[in-house]
């Protein structure tokens, strides 16, 4: 479709002019439900990440398609799981370890760990179901090793094998035995066709240090009798938490992540572990999702100075920022204008970053003339989806769906 690509490129270059607001000193709108606004500041004790930051201020903007439907705020991600994991030692595996399954043809991944160099073959496996015992060849449709899995793009650890159970193995209260087991193994059971699904979600994808995060879990297709949770921090720290049973059968927790472990790149994770069953079989499921914890090292101070640049025909919005720590901060926002039918439509996106010392400073979002012309929108304008981030750790500190109206 080269013609489509060429047309899109041409559209991005066809910039037209629209009139903009007058100079004014403004205030940010009151925060709305769902906004993320720090109520107090705390200096970031870890200044190492700022040492390598670019010190050159940069500001950019570009036109957006007024027909685009932009989300007011991030949507919560929902993780769904038909899987669970077990840690098993050689004694358990030699004896036989229970693997509840709700559907036939489950995949069982076995990964040696803890210095265990053993390599299992199909002849090492035994599957028991009720009074029936099947050897590995009868119980599995296939068994693939690490070489084949890595060739297919799955970077499994050394010594890993994945067995796909045969229909003859059935489902329900299965038992896996490895009479020649040696050392420790991680057992991972995945049931791609199961109707028992654990859903896990965090109410927000970013939480400020010291604030609680609501976590919800629900097991569909079965009843969860127990549930527990664990937060893991980017530095490897684990924080267990309890999930409480709700009237509708789901599970919920409000957890305050330990901000002392908010160091290092990467996200935090929420892990949930449930076990329960249907009327016919036990069910076990684990799930996890990700979120970020941000330190409130700065915040918007509420001031906005709007300047119409007569010479260039553009608009500048200098947004006041109060910083507790020196760093390179980033401000981004979407300027909306008014369409002929009176609706607010996106006109342009702007981003600005620069080094701010502790104290009060400003970052300016600049929308140049050509960028504003492209949208063919008119006043009143409104700055939405205003976000303040610390580029040292990429933490999103403040986010406001509706920031300021420009009349």
């Amino acid at each position, binding site marked *: 479709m080269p013609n489509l*690509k060429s047309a*899109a490129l041409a559209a*991005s*270059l066809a910039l037209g002019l629209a009139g903009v607001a007058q100079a004014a000193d403004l205030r940010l709108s009151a925060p709305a439900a769902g906004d993320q606004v720090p109520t107090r500041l705390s200096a970031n004790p870890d200044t190492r990440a700022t040492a*390598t930051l*670019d010190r050159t*201020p*940069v*500001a*950019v903007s*570009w*036109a*957006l398609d007024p027909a685009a439907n932009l*989300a007011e705020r991030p*949507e919560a*991600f929902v*993780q769904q799981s038909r899987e669970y*994991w077990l840690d098993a030692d050689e004694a358990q595996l030699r004896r036989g370890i229970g693997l509840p399954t709700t559907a036939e043809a489950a*995949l069982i991944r076995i*990964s040696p*760990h803890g210095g265990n160099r053993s390599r299992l073959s199909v002849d090492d496996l035994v599957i028991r179901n009720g009074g029936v015992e099947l050897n590995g060849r009868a119980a599995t449709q296939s068994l693939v090793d690490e070489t*084949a*899995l890595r060739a*297919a*793009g*799955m*970077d*499994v*650890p050394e010594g890993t094998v994945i067995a*796909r159970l045969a229909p003859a193995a059935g489902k329900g209260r299965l038992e896996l035995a490895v009479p020649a087991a040696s050392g420790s193994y991680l057992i991972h059971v*995945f049931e*791609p066709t199961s109707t028992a699904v654990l859903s896990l979600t965090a109410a927000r*994808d*970013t939480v400020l240090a010291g604030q609680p995060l609501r976590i919800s879990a629900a097991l569909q297709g079965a009843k969860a009798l127990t549930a527990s949770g664990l937060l893991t921090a980017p530095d*490897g720290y*684990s924080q267990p938490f309890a999930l409480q049973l709700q009237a509708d059968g789901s599970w919920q927790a409000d957890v305050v992540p330990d901000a002392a472990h908010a160091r290092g*790149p990467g*996200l935090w*994770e929420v892990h949930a572990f449930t076990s329960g069953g249907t009327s016919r079989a036990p069910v076990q499921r*684990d799930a*996890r*999702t*990700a*979120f*970020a914890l941000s330190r409130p090292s700065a915040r918007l101070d509420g001031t906005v100075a709007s300047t119409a640049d007569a010479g260039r025909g553009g608009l*500048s919005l*200098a947004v006041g920022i109060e910083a507790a720590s020196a760093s390179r901060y*980033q401000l981004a926002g979407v300027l909306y204008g008014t369409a002929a039918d009176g609706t607010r439509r996106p006109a342009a*996106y702007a*981003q*600005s*970053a620069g080094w701010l010392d502790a104290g009060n400073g400003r*970052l*300016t979002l*600049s929308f*140049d003339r*050509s*960028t504003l012309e492209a949208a063919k929108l008119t006043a009143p304008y409104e700055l939405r989806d205003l976000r303040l981030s610390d*580029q040292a750790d*990429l933490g999103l500190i403040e986010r406001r769906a509706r920031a300021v109206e420009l009349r």
Partner: protein
Amino acid sequence: MVRLALALSLALGAACAASAAVTGVAFVHGTGAQTNALADYWTPEFVNSVRQGLPDQSKYVVVNCDLGQYMWDSRAAGCVAGQLTSFINGAGITDLVVITHSNGGNVVRWILSNPTYDSRYPNIIGKIRWVNALAPSSAGTPLADAVMNGNVFEQALGWLLGYQNDAVRMQQVSWMAYYNQNNLLGTAGRPALPKGFWAVVGTDVDSSPFDGDSWCGGYQYNLGLETTQNWLASCSDGFLNCTSQQAAGRTWFRDVDRMAGAEPLSHNQSRRACFGLDRILRDDL
């Protein structure tokens, strides 16, 4: 400071449509550290075929960086920015087409989404005509989740399982959902990228031992593929669901709509001269 910032302000949409444009093409590889991506990742056959579309075939660069890191890392996006800047300045490029594969799309999308993170980024973005993203892992892959999920045990027991690198960690589905909502642009509901990000989508894998097409790109029949497919949707290239490949920017084409014989492109084949892909990319320059 504000004046300095304004001086660096760029209208990123106003690119390089000048009549005297000097066109170049850059190849950005996927996950992993490369020191000779031409030979080890793309193959000379593919790169040499694509660059035949340039007015001056010497105006190309094959990036070699450590894309086993988080996308924003100095060894990942920082390295890519450095090599693109050197190429742009050294060859006088004013019109740059960037071809990415897999996670290379995320690294370039980081640059496009965060022009203020590094003062080299705006100049690169200003020169880019568009990005041709071959099988981009824009929404991650369940296979990354599958190999990383044992890490809760790793943390509890103090051993390392499944951990390959930060790029694999980053390409877990829930992690990419976070980054798409907060650190990257161009997905549904988010502001558009400053330049076009055009995805080529692999929809299926031919893995029959009796089908010679399965061998293009060296992606032969194996049982591993049949196993890993269980983590993926019916529409996938064997590594990424189609929904992930289509999550950012716009779909340029799906393999079966443009490839010779309506052949699908597996994840390995979408960086090789298979079924006419190289000629389509060449003609796009």
